[in-house]
């Protein structure tokens, strides 16, 4: 395993621990405003300083990890499972199911900027965490479906699959026991990169005011609140720390994804 992958894994483990133990790690109440304490620079009292309403940025970044990870995990899990089921069925049975899924759905969904679809959906549904997760799942599953379909098309022609079929194994058995375990590897890479994508999309939509509504400590919301000129002037740290949190999280999942891809595909290792 390469060094960057390990760095990525370490960051993710820390992130998960921070999210789980957030109430114990946070030093202040995330919602407690105090205008006499606004724009304080980082100090022993407030590790990351305070924002324009005097809230403790460290505590908010810590609780923000919960929102980011929740969105990432739910979106990736739901999209990957849906995508795998539909992609496997399309690849295995071919025929009209495949023609609809790969001929129509793939072409249409991939011909459309995903973020725009999510923005449009949330714009009409109204902002909120669950609606945001729903929108990201609706655009997210297609990538997994296309990947698995391609894999299944390849694996189903292998000799051991033909042998299983000759022995009279049922379709379900062939698909679940023989094909999927051999088709699923690239999915892990895709899921890891998908986590990065979901975390980014959540922050982006929250930044636009379409995700988690403001008092919640979403990293995207924090950046949106920190970017007006007077706050930038007085407290650039209000922007920098949540920005760093997003960057590190995305970077970590990208490291893991890249590392896994190299690990699973030795041909790439030499490059």
């Amino acid at each position: 395993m390469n060094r960057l992958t390990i760095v990525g894994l370490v960051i993710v483990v820390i992130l998960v621990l921070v999210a789980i133990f957030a109430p114990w790690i946070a030093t202040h109440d995330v919602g407690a405003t105090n205008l006499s304490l606004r724009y304080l620079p980082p100090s022993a009292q407030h590790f990351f300083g305070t924002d324009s309403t005097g809230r403790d940025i460290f505590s908010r970044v810590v609780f923000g990890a919960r929102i980011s990870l929740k969105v990432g995990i739910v979106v990736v899990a739901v999209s990957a499972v849906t995508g795998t089921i539909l992609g496997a069925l399309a690849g295995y049975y071919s025929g009209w199911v495949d023609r609809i899924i790969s001929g129509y759905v793939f072409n249409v969904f991939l011909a459309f900027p995903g973020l725009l679809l999510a923005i449009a959906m949330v714009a009409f549904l109204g902002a909120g965490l669950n609606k945001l997760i729903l929108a990201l799942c609706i655009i997210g599953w297609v990538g997994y479906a296309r990947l698995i379909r391609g894999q299944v098309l390849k694996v189903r022609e292998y000799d051991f699959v033909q042998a299983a079929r000759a022995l009279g194994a049922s379709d379900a058995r062939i698909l679940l026991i023989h094909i999927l375990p051999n088709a699923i590897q690239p999915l892990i890479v895709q899921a890891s990169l998908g986590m990065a994508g979901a975390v980014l999309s959540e922050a982006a939509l929250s930044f636009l005011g379409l995700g988690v509504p403001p008092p919640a400590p979403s990293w995207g919301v924090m950046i949106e609140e920190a970017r007006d000129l007077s706050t930038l002037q007085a407290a650039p740290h209000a922007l920098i720390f949540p920005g760093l949190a997003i960057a590190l999280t995305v970077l970590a999942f990208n490291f893991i994804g890249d590392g896994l891809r190299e690990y699973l595909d030795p041909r790439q290792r030499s490059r």
Partner: protein
Amino acid sequence: MRSFYKHKLFPFLRRVAIFLLVVWTVVSLVTLLIELVPGDPAVSVLGEQATPEQFEQFREKHGLDRPPFFFSIPRDAAGERHFQWHGAKNRYTEYWIALVHGDMGKSFRTDRPVIDLIRERYLATIELALAALLIAVLIAIPLGVVAGKNKGTWIDNLASFVALIGISLPGFVIGPLLVYVFAVKLDWLPPSGRFDWSYLVLPAVTLGAALSAILTRMVRSSVIEELGEDYVRTARAKGLSETKVVYKHVLKNGLIPVVTILGLQLGVLLAGAIITEKIFGWPGLGLLLVEDGIGKRDYRVVQGCVLVISITYIVANMLTDMVYRWLDPRIRVS
């Protein structure tokens, strides 16, 4: 039938068919999205205090009093669902008919035609996207070539690391950071608006940053791959200088996959422009969508913006595909 599939026009017709299918889906999605609005759009636009007459007038003016689609399955008084046919006089067909005539309806707020609002903003977005593309290419090609030529050295590692950071830092983090450094601290560039060229710099860099990172990686691996080809050895054996080998031979072939990425990323740019425009108050389609459309619940404006951005994206992808085929004759054959 088989001879039809083999006809040389088939790939072209297939693409046209997919294009029409995608446009049809997008328009359908956009028209039906308004059904997702919780409650009544008239109430959410006019507010609870409006009189029943005002609601009635609003619904009539914007066609909201008509049924949404050809049929519906409403509940009756007893709670049973029944199929009900509405015929051609529904919002879906009306939106289509208007659209074919170049009409996207009127803004719920200002009564101005949506197409006019979009026309005012469209150029600003295209200007921003093209500037970002230019900046990305100007950064990525030299950086990628240097990294690829010096594969495995510290130069390569540094370039790859910078690229990775660029990918991981989203526009809504880079943008405000640039504002802080160049507008607040140094006071070199304006923080927002669109007047002379100096207003374009920060938004274009923000939007182009992620793309330049992706491109750098592409150019790098492309250069590495091409450097291993036979024609490079031939060119070197001929005694060509290394610069000539790289910039004349390697880059020419290595740029083919890059063009595809560029085209596909144009869509990402258009979506990213929504965020960039919000950061810098850049008066493009994204700002129209976010502030005038979503912010003021002007659903007609949202429909129009989503439609226009999508169609631009689809057309850009089609053009990319054509350029790609033209650049690499091998793809034309297969």
